[in-house]
Structures are given as C-alpha cells and as structure tokens.
C-alpha cells in the first residue's frame, strides 16, 4: 500500500514489530518485552503523527488510492443495494452511483460520486468527475426518494464537477444550481457525509443535507489547494501552504458551523481499515438518521433552509459610516 513520507517512521516501526513477532513464532524465543516496548513507542508515534496532521497531509489522506470510495461504502454501510441508472434524457453517468439500499431494515436512497479503481474503471467513471447527466441522475433519484418518503444519504467524494467541453455544453453550471435548489426543498430527510474530497460546487450539488458529517481525513473547500496556490502564487506546488489558508479541515468546518460532526477514522486513515471505518460511519448514520427522521417535514425543510441562510460573515455598515 502506498505510504506517505511523513508516516514512514511509524510504518517502519510497525514493520519491525511484525518481524519480531514472526521471529517469535518461528524460533520460539521470547521477545515479548521488547515487542511491548516497541508497541508502546509505536502507539505514541502514531498518536503524535496522525493526530497532528497538517491540513495538506489530510488532503493527501483523502486522496489515498486505497481509501474507500462510494461503492466500497455502499457495501460497508448497507445490507442490500439496487443500483438505478440514467438521467432519462441523455446518458448514464457512471461517475455518480445511485440507488436504493437497506440500512438496518430501512430503505434509503443513496447517492455518491465514484472514482475508478483501475484504468478501465477510471475511464468508465471519468476519474470520478461527473458530467451534468450524473447530477441529473442524482436529482432524479432524490425526487424519487421524496415521492416515497425515503431518507436520502449522499456520500461525497469528488474533486469537482468535470470541467470538460461537453460538460459545459450540456449545462454543468445550470445543473449544479438546479441540484442545490431542488435538494434544498426536498420533503424528505437528507444526511450528507463527506467521505473524502469535497471539491467545490461539484460536492455542494449533492451536499445540501439536514445534517452534514465529515470523515476525519476528508476536506471540503471552495477551491482545491492546488488551484488556490496557482492563483495566489502561480505555483501549484505550494498547495500545502494554500491548504493551510483555506481552512478546509473538518475541525475548521465544525468550528465554522458548516458541518455537524466529525467521524473519527482508524488511526492512520480509513484506507488502513475499511471494516472499522464502515462500522464507525454506521454508528453515526444510525444516530443522525434517527434524529432527522423524527422531525416533521415542514420543520425539516425550514431548518435546512435556515441552516444555510445564516452562513456568512459581514458587518452592517454603522449609521456613522453612511
């Protein structure tokens, strides 16, 4: 598995411990004291490294190729799933997956962008960059959910809506606006979980939830750190600095009131333990779905609108200044 430069010390230590354990097995010698010491050290090191990640280190975690993406989460979180295809007007966009799934006996509509897992899959899924028809499919399925009073779960992991010629021709901007607008007024509970990358309008288009949760190593921003660095310094390699400026981590976003909760990942990141990540998310889903499913629909929509209505920081110009 691909490792990051900054986690090498802990990985090396883990490797050393494993070696010793192997040795113990094969040679029947007692290294248990040493192993214990090393494990304590490793544990300290892990905490030190993983609990003090820089924003950009989290961004790279969010992009780890083995990090679960939507289809992985669907099988981790739900008991059954039936996928529905197509926007009913142009194409089935496989960069967004959607359908109905059973969550602990409760049918929910689940929707999320999906990155490819290999070259062929990446081509089919356009590297996880949705076209307008992907968002139109999402909107269609969300309206279907509303019709049947089914809660919606959106799993967000997307660098952004695809900036392509045909995507522009078929109304990428327009469809994002429509998704945001229509999702805002849907009379059914919506839980949005940013699982990996939350890239700008392409993420927001399916992110108008009654509750918005975020995994510990996910990011959510108006612009990617790379693009921000390019604009500021004409140098995308300074992305790490830009990531600091943008305040895109779950901790920041929780403080700003943009998200409601942070879902802890296994130490070292979701990619190191899919099953545990899934269990962790499940418990958050259980709790938050139960909460929003209890709210009367009128109140639900009102509160959803009010939540976004109040976001924004500005000063009223004092009368003296006028």
């Amino acid at each position: 598995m691909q490792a990051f430069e900054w986690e090498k010390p802990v990985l090396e230590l883990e490797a050393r411990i494993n070696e010793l354990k192997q040795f113990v097995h094969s040679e029947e010698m007692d290294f248990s004291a040493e192993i214990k010491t090393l494990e304590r050290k490793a544990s300290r090191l892990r905490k030190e490294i993983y609990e003090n990640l820089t924003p950009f280190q989290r961004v790279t975690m969010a992009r780890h190729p083995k990090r679960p993406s939507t289809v992985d989460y669907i099988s981790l979180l739900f008991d059954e799933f039936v996928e529905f295809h197509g926007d009913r007007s142009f194409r089935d966009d496989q960069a967004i997956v959607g359908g109905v799934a059973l969550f602990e006996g409760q049918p929910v509509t689940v929707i999320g962008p999906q990155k490819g897992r290999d070259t062929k899959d990446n081509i089919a899924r356009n590297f996880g960059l949705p076209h307008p028809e992907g968002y139109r499919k999402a909107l269609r399925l969300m309206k279907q959910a509303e019709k049947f009073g089914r809660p919606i779960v959106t799993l967000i992991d997307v660098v952004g809506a695809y900036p392509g010629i045909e995507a522009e021709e078929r109304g990428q901007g327009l469809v994002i606006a429509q998704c945001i607008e229509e999702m805002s007024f849907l009379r059914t509970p919506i839980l949005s979980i940013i699982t990996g990358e939350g890239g700008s309008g392409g993420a927001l288009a399916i992110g108008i939830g009654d509750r918005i949760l975020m995994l510990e190593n996910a990011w959510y921003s108006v612009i990617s750190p790379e693009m921000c660095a390019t604009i500021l310094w004409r140098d995308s390699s300074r992305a790490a600095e830009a990531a600091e400026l943008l305040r895109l981590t779950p901790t920041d976003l929780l403080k700003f009131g943009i998200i409601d909760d942070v879902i802890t990942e296994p130490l070292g990141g979701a990619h190191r333990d899919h099953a545990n990540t899934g269990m962790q998310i499940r418990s958050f889903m259980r709790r938050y779905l139960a909460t929003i499913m209890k709210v009367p629909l009128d109140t639900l929509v009102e509160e959803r609108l009010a939540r976004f209505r109040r976001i924004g920081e500005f000063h009223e110009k004092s009368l003296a200044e006028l």
Partner: protein
Amino acid sequence: MLNVFKGKPKYMTVRPQGEPQRKEFPDNLWTRCDCCGKMIFTKELEKTGFLCASCGHHFRISAIKRIAMLTEPGDFQAFPPLVAADPIGFPGYAEKIKVAQEQTGLDDAALIGKAKIQGSLCILGVIDFSFIGGSMGSVVGEQLVRGFETALKEELPVVIFSGGGGGARMHEGIFSLMQMAKTAQAVGKHSRAGLLFISVLTHPTMGGVYASFASLGDIILAEPCALVGFAGPRIVEETTRQKLPAGFQTAEYALQHGMIDAIVPRSHMLDYVGRLLAWHR
C-alpha cells in the same frame, strides 16, 4: 443581430481573482476596443451605452452605469450597505477589500435595491466586475438574499445582472461556497411563491455565480458575446487537452445549446426587460 464575432479571439481570458481594475474607462480621450481593436473616442463610447460602433462589442460597465441605463434618476434605492468581514483570516484579504472600495467607490461587488423599470417596481441587482472580479463572498450573497427576501415579502419580481469573474470569492473559503446554496435557496423561496426572476448574464458570468442563482432565472437573458459557463476556459483546455470550439462559452454558444432564452443587445435591454416585467404584473 450584430455580428459580434468579427475579429474576435476564440475566447476571452477570465481572471477569477485578478486585481481590480484601476478604472473602467480611464480619463484618456481614446479607448481601444477589446474586440476589434479600433480606437474609440471615450466620450462617444459613453453616449452609445459603451458599445463599440464598429463591431458592436459590449464593454464591461460599472453597476452604477448599468443602473443608470435601466432606471430614471431617483428610481433606484439601494439597500443599506454591508461590508466584508474576513471569516477565515485570509492573508491580504482585508487590505484587498479596502483597496477595492477606494478604487470603485462601492462597499462590495453587488449593488442591490428597489427599482422602477419602465413603470414596473422590482428588485434590481447588479454585480460589478471591478470589485475583486465581481466575485461572490458573504456580502454579495447576503445582499442578494435580502433582495429576494424583500421581493418575496412585497411580491416583486427580481432582475439581476450577473457579471463576476470566477464566481466564488476564494478569500472567504467555505463561506464563499456556501453563498451558492444560500442564494439558490433564496431564489427557490421567491420562485415557489410564483414570482418572476429575470437573470441577465453579462460578461463574464462563471463559476459559483453561474452555478447558483444566475442559472435559476425563469427567464435567462445574456448580452451578446458574454462569457458564460461553469469552469473557466483555461481550466477546460488544460483538463481536456482539447482545442476549444469556436465561440466556446459565449452567450451565442449557450443559446444554441439550450441554456439561455435570448440574447439581448444592450441597446434593447431596457425595453426587453421592461416589457417582460409589464407582462408579469
């Protein structure tokens, strides 16, 4: 319609977070047309509504000039001004705002208020490109939302002229992104009450502005040749490594692709909007 493409480059460069221009039309006697390159007597330009007499090019104009073209003197009453905060403490943002305020005389990029257009009361909003590229931060978002809320309360139609570079204002980070949701929802409430929203896309309407309220008009108009789209042309070119088709993301291109209702030259804009407002009274 005028052939606005004559001698025009394939697309125009969008500078999402470019420096605010010192002055739209400096006090020089002559201004060069961005489109055909001809030199035009600046006083002449003022008289024609900032159209190039030889190629019909629509010069970018200030919010104040736009409002003056649409309303009689005294028929526009701006909402109380708001001033940007610095919600994520972005380096240099506070200073940038101050400079933009001094150079433009505006508090932020949007001028919104109650107006009378050819006898029809409405809420009129204009985004000014010269204020940090007309980008949408918390102030622009809040002003727009207040516009739609007032319109909803008083049962008025809304007319917005959008022309902001990159759409979102990066310097406000996630707060800027959330203005897309906030404004789209304000349109939604107003629309669900059966009220009219005319969205006019002026050069350039891109990114977060295009992908939120500006795309949600009951009627979407555009000025000739205005650049409208989600991703900037340079990003599209870099991502796809394809040559962009002629006229890509121009208003004419968007019309052909079904995204806008009509292209209205500036000289007809007042009558066109005035008539639509009258028909929806």
